[in-house]
């Protein structure tokens, strides 16, 4: 399981109720279910991925987060997880609001467009950056609203969303992001993980 999922799992206490939005093949869900006795549910747009989840015995709903989150009642989950998908929505702000309405807390991870390799790629090659977390070409990427850790940090603050924990992840390790080290983390992390609440 990828490092990101391990970090997310560490943020969630045992026995909680969790919704994984864009749960893909259910890797994180399965881990949470088996290791932390989490009451886990998934929402996934891809039919193939939904089938993979069913084959793992996971409860998953085929659907689109931009349309289908509204059916869940307020604060019906302890945590709602959204991994590296926020930037792919037509309206990420709306989705973020929905995550925070449905979940008591939300865990959102974003691929960091401020990562030094991304910056260098654009600066020196002059073409759209391709990295491990951003593997697609400009013409076939699902990403519509790329942002940096710094952008997201400021964005949630401006919306009066409380940040409980923010972590910077690179290939090797994770570290705490705070107001004072934001610039550095924004340069050296390829992923940001935010535990937030409204």
């Amino acid at each position, binding site marked *: 399981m990828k490092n990101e999922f391990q970090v997310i799992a560490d943020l969630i206490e045992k026995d909680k109720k969790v919704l994984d939005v864009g749960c893909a093949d259910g890797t994180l869900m399965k881990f949470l279910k088996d290791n932390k006795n989490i009451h886990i549910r998934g929402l996934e747009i891809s039919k193939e991925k939904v089938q993979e989840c*069913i*084959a793992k015995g996971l*409860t*998953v*709903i*085929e659907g689109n987060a931009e349309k289908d989150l509204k059916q869940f*009642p307020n604060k019906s989950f302890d945590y709602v997880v959204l991994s590296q998908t926020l930037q792919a929505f037509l309206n990420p702000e709306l989705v973020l609001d929905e995550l925070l309405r449905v979940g008591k807390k939300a865990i959102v991870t974003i691929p960091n467009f401020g990562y030094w390799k991304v910056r260098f790629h654009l600066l020196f090659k002059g073409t759209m950056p391709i990295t491990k977390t951003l593997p697609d070409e400009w013409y076939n990427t699902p990403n519509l609203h790329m942002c940096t850790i710094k952008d997201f940090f400021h964005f949630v603050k401006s919306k009066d969303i409380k940040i409980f924990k923010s972590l910077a992840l690179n290939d090797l390790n994770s570290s705490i992001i705070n107001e004072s080290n934001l610039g550095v983390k924004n340069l050296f992390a390829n992923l940001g993980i935010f535990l937030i609440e409204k």
Partner: protein
Amino acid sequence: MNTEKNIKTLIVNKPLKLDCGKTIKDFPIAYETYGSLNSKKDNAILVFHALTGDQFVTGINPVTNKEGWWSYAVGPDKAIDTNKYFVICSNVIGGCMGSYGPSHKDPDQKIFGTNFPVITINDMVNAQYNLLDHFGIDKLFSITGGSMGGMQVLQFISNFPDKSKTVIPIATTSSHSAQNIAFNELGRQAITADSNWKDGNYTSKDTNPGKGLAVARMAAHITYLSKKGLQEKFGRKLQEREDLKFGFDADFQIESYLRYQGSVFVDRFDANSYLYITRAMDYFDLAKKFNGNLSEAFINTNAKFFIISFTSDWLYPTQENKDIVIALNSIGADVGFVEIESDKGHDSFLLDVPDFLSALKNFLDKSYEEN
């Protein structure tokens, strides 16, 4: 129990009050079982059949000598694996494969015809509930069915919220739409317009409204297929002829196909049962009792739901299946949902659609492992 014509029958002695106000008692429910009930009695699956189905789910139907209606899904090593599970299915009341219906005789030994009480989906499941007592099953492992079978699934878990561990409604709706009612009315009108229908007394007058029933079946059959599926299978292909004949014979293969479907249906189905069962479907509106709030229908159950729809099903489209998912989500129920890609229309659930069958199998087997 009697085994007349290979039909197993349970006589229900307990009176059953029907939605129409009448009470029936000492009435037969015809059923069939597949696989065996384990000692813990925790492996039973109650399957509900659709409009023209019956209790003979799989294998050779001993009455029609044709394959059972859900042979693709039910049997040894199939999605509903009868090596593992004990499958029970019964003919709905109002039906014509041995359960109490309009072709039965009233206490005065006259065939009921249209004097049979109008029954509902609620009445059907209340009648079938007696099978649990008969087999000494406290809790089913699963209930499932497609189309009208799915309506019975929803009604069953609403009426008996702790009687099944898992719940699988397929290609169904919680409330019959105007379009659904319209198609059913078309079928009923075709039957009653047949001069051989004789106000429903055709048996005693030794006739049969076969033409009307065949037309009803033909119209309904179109609703079970998709436009694309029909086009791919038949297109404008001609039936055993080089060119158009400028007449009203079946020039096109699709005409011939529908006529065939109509004619074989008449051999195995009772016209009055068709009226009664379509009426039951039309009256189905699960949320009505709960002032339109469908969630209330499921508020008392902890069962695990898995809802399945098909992309090309325009009779019970994905949205109507999703409305059930939404109602369940809004009360925090355990519900999964998948829409299966298929060109085969509403009939997809009866056919060899591998994604559907594997989803069904995986859901059942994984849920059973957690037992």
